[in-house]
């Protein structure tokens, strides 16, 4: 063997080792030195410092305002640590919990994602804290495991709604649709008038899930046992007509070419611009984007309304809602008493006031006795009747711990015609199997 051959061997071996290394090294190193620093500061002064871990996708103006108020009132400083959002952030959270490196307070989803963290092992049980009386039971359910409550709401409820441009609606003399067929008829007229009927922003693929997810109120009304049967492998999306309908609705938008032509290259921000500037009429999305629209187009907020995703019958008409993320106290935190005081202040009337002054809500707060201010977004005001008449249902992820990780790719496939509704539903059924097995659920 010549020297050159040896050299080639060496570089090949290196390349192979790199494969192994790159496969192992995706976790990343997340700064975890704050614990030492805060301990030092506590020793120096009387002031207490708590760390709060939050994702970088959530608008934190409201939380920051409450934290400032807490510093003034209770002399507890809050140090905010940012982490990525989405599934990448889930891994940061899981790793930090597993290595006892969690911040004192943690902002994280409620519902299935939270329950999958094994909360009883890591978080302070808040069930018997008097301040928990301020929190609505519908929220408590989403942060409870085995009857014990672990979190407070970290914001307002959010609707999975169809945002619509009211100017286009009044220009074309349209009214808010009560059935899916009415919606499609509206879309046809909007398309004739030269506007984009429905915005697809599939470059940010998570947004493609909304037509399926926001249909859950309708699924729940027509097939009340679906969530439970689905959790224990007794019902499937593909074989339950009411649930399959959610995928069919998405396909019908594609069949009638109601999405924008460049939907696969459109991002969330592009979509919000199209809606606010009146180039497109509808955007099925979570109402938390109202904050983003307000940041760029504050003067357009009165032109944007919201309605629930219609069912096939006018008498079934309600809104699918998402509970806000919760704030949880770490069991191994540096100062649990201070953390409890922090949480107590957050759900107190003063805390809510500070929150609402800094940030307009994207839906009602799941805290008792909170009146929304007069300058609440028009779209949120349009959502209130659903809440007042009790026509709301939490999304499926709050009823069932299983949500398949590939739903967003599957809904892009259905929305772009790569697969049909039936194929998409069947793919999703096999996708959730991984989650169910990982959680060790019965029946799988």
């Amino acid at each position: 063997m010549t020297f050159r051959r040896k050299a080639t061997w060496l570089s090949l071996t290196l390349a192979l080792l790199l494969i192994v290394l790159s496969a192992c090294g995706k976790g990343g190193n997340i700064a975890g030195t704050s614990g030492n620093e805060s301990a030092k500061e506590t020793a120096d002064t009387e002031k207490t410092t708590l760390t709060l871990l939050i994702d970088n996708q959530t608008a934190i103006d409201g939380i920051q305002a409450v934290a400032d108020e807490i510093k003034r009132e209770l002399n507890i400083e809050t140090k905010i640590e940012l982490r990525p959002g989405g599934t990448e952030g889930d891994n940061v959270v899981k790793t930090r919990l597993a290595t006892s490196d969690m911040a004192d307070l943690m902002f994280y989803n409620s519902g299935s994602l939270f329950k999958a963290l094994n909360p009883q092992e890591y978080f302070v049980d808040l069930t018997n804290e008097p301040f928990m009386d301020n929190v609505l039971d519908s929220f408590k359910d989403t942060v409870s495991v085995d009857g014990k409550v672990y979190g407070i709401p970290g914001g307002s409820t959010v609707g999975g709604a169809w945002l619509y441009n009211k100017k286009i609606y009044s220009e074309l003399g349209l009214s808010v649709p009560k059935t899916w067929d009415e919606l499609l008829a509206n879309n046809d007229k909007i398309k004739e008038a030269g506007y984009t009927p429905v915005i697809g922003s599939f470059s940010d693929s998570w947004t493609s899930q909304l037509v399926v997810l926001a249909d859950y109120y309708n699924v729940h009304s027509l097939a009340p046992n679906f969530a439970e049967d689905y959790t224990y492998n007794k019902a499937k999306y593909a074989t339950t007509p009411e649930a399959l309908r959610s995928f069919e609705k998405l396909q019908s938008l594609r069949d009638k070419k109601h999405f924008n032509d460049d939907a696969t290259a459109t991002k969330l921000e592009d979509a919000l611009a199209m809606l606010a500037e009146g180039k497109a009429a509808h955007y099925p999305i979570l109402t938390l984007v109202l904050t983003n629209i307000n940041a760029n187009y504050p003067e357009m907020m009165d032109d944007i309304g919201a309605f629930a995703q219609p069912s096939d019958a006018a008498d079934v008409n309600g809104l699918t809602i998402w509970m806000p993320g919760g704030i949880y106290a770490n069991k191994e935190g540096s100062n649990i008493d201070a953390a409890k005081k922090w949480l107590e202040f957050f759900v107190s009337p003063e805390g809510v006031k500070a929150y609402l002054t800094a940030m307009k809500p994207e839906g009602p707060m799941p805290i008792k006795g909170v009146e929304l201010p007069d300058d609440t977004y028009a779209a949120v005001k349009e959502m209130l009747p659903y809440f007042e008449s009790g026509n709301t249902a939490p999304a499926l992820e709050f009823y069932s711990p299983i949500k398949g990780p590939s739903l967003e790719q599957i809904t892009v496939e259905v929305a772009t015609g790569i697969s049909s509704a039936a194929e998409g539903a069947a793919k999703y059924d096999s996708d959730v199997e991984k989650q169910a097995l990982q959680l060790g659920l019965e029946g799988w």
Partner: protein
Amino acid sequence: MKSTKSLYSYGFLLPAGIIFFIFFLLPTMVSFFFSMTRWTLTDWEFIGLDNFIMFFKESSLNIGFRNTFIYAVMTSGTKVVLGLLLAVLLTSSIRSKDFLRSVVFFPTLISTIAVGITFSYLMHPSRGLINTALAALGIQGPNWLGDPALAIYSVGLVDIWKGVGFATVIYIAGMMSIPADYYEAVDIDGGNAFRKFWHITLPLIRPAMNSVIILSFIGGLRTFDLVWTMTKGGPGFSSDLIASIIYKQYQGGFYGLSTAGNVILFVIVAVLAFPLYRFLTKREVDL
């Protein structure tokens, strides 16, 4: 006497051996173990080969295998040919050779993520620079990354642009090491430039070419970063590679399953790369 001597020399190998064991061998063995468990980072349950069965049942896996293969063959093939042509150009007696060599090599130095983000803006169907330029020429440009049939090839083009400089540099090094005598011999025999290339350059840069083929082929098989930044495997699953499927499983929190995927990828790369290597080196000519 002989045995003491060899023991003594093994002592020198020990530090490197320990490092190799702890940082390379052990993690590999551990990953083989965890690929057979259902693993939540804090807890694991032994489930035998279920993860491998589950991995092969993944609906997007066919797309992943096909794309990985297309991507590896397309990018390495183009780099081998284009890199050779560029190297011939850049070793000829043209002006500002050094400057041009740096220009070809520059893309290799830029972070893949930066390249990916930049190109995903350049390739936007209506606002991107590429299609705006095509529109000025009266051509309706395609939806580069949004068309399911096209996305993987668009990413491949960017990969070629970024990686061809590296191939060129290896070729240039190979060509520079060919003694001038051989070319003189062709001159004396009355051969032209093409004969020089065909009978001297091409056989003698075989080792360089083999390195380019193997490195870019393995690179193509395990590509992840560029595809992930530009399309995240989308639209839908249409530009998924084996590596991006594995990453999505890891993101979903299925640690055992994604480890099994990595074991499979390891085996695939090994099964494809080692015979390729043997085949190529058998035909190498020594100077």
